[in-house]
């Protein structure tokens, strides 16, 4: 698997798209800091970008990479290599190179603007950690979709739909449920619904670290009591990990049975 990972990573590290992605973050980081000149303000704006764009880019990039390297995959399949190794190697190659673009692209401008001297460093770290998680989650979901759909257009369609669902529609349904059942105690429901969507979970984790928690009022206290404890942190990181592990497990299961 590590050989495949190495070559996928190597291949991607020379791809134009990796640089576009990297430059995009670099530019975004510098522009935000230039306009704000305030690290913590920029972290908030960056959060909006990360919870929307990272999943989108992870999804599209994952699907694109899978379809683009289809023939190469076939070449590899005829070699004496385990199937699981081929697909997991490719998956980790994509996810790691995307994550590296994210970390470097955002890291360089923030470090240049004195991140290490600022109190915002932990906010920034949680931002990057969730960003990396989201990259791994959505790339894995994208590989799942691509593996299940031979048709490229259909695959892209489903991938965009999945992103749209988790980034937008899910929250719409969530909000309607909250408004509809407002006479009932909703803390637990809100907590579970948040855990059920990696984008929401990441958003809340960042918001709580950015200390907007108090704004959340009573509900915030419930959330803070949950996420603020080490138990909650472990549980939410565990949940994010589960969001990585389950799709990855399905990639290898699906790959074993698929015809090429």
């Amino acid at each position, binding site marked *: 698997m590590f*050989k*495949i990972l190495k070559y996928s990573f190597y291949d991607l590290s020379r791809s134009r798209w990796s640089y576009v992605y990297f430059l995009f973050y670099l530019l975004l980081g510098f522009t935000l800091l230039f306009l704000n000149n305030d690290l913590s303000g920029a972290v908030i704006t960056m959060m909006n970008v990360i919870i929307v764009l990272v999943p989108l880019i992870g999804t599209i990039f994952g699907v694109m990479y899978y379809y683009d390297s289809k023939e190469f995959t076939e070449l590899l399949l005829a070699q004496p290599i385990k199937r699981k190794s081929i697909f997991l190697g490719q998956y980790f190659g994509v996810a790691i190179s995307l994550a590296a673009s994210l970390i470097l692209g955002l890291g360089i401008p923030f470090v240049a603007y004195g991140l290490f001297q600022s109190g915002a460093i932990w906010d920034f770290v949680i931002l990057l950690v969730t960003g990396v998680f989201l990259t791994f989650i959505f790339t894995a979901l994208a590989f799942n979709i691509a593996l299940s759909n031979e048709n490229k257009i259909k695959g892209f369609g489903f991938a965009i739909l999945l992103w749209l669902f988790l980034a937008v529609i899910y929250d719409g349904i969530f909000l309607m449920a909250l408004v509809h059942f407002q006479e009932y105690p909703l803390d637990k429901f809100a907590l579970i619904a948040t855990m059920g969507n990696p984008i929401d979970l990441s958003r809340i984790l960042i918001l709580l670290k950015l200390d907007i928690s108090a704004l959340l009022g009573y509900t915030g206290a419930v959330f803070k009591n949950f996420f603020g404890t080490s138990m909650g942190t472990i549980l939410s990181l565990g949940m994010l990990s589960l969001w990585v592990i389950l799709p990855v497990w399905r990639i290898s299961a699906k790959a074993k049975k698929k015809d090429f």
Partner: protein
Amino acid sequence: MVTIESLYKKFGKNEVLKGIDLTIKDGGIIAVLGPNGSGKTTLIKSILGMVIPNKGTISINGQNIKKDWKYRKEIDYLPQIANFPGNLTVQELIKMIKDLRDKPANDDELIAFFKLENFLDKKLVTLSGGTKQKVNLVLTFMFNSPLVILDEPTSGLDPISLIRLKEWIHKEKAKGKTILITSHIMSFVEEIAEDLLFILEGKIYFNGSVQELKKQTGQTDFEHAIANILTEHHV
């Protein structure tokens, strides 16, 4: 030796292989023929483990290949469409495949043979179809495995390269290898193959030597013999 017993494969509702029984003896060149969609590629891919059959067993040298991958160390495969990661150069690709197979290879000889020296530092996206096919051939032949499977090896090749390819295949045969070829170029098949495997609608329609085929169809010309099978069947 490759042994295939009652092999069935469906893609959705489309039954592609409908019970194939076949034994391929060691040594010699076997051409796998058949009209488009008859199941040639599916059969080859089943042997390679790329397609997973619904029913039936495939064993190579007595070993069932199901859920195994190590047996592919002894197979060289030339895929139909040569499409490689575009960001790599020819040299890097060769190095990478060598690294993945971890086996001695005579790539230098093949590069010289197919006159690829000038392309080694070129990225694969910039290569023409024919050159890519030559790279494809280098990758296939460099490992010297006893079983070689070639899916449309002639596609995109210029006449000189075609002659070289034939030359090489003969050389490989002389080493006692088993070579499985699919092709639509009948003259090429006639020139090179000793045995024929004709697949029609997922079943083996003919399995024997070129002479036997000519005898059976009563045709002296190879192409006509093939055509005869097809028309006969449709009538």
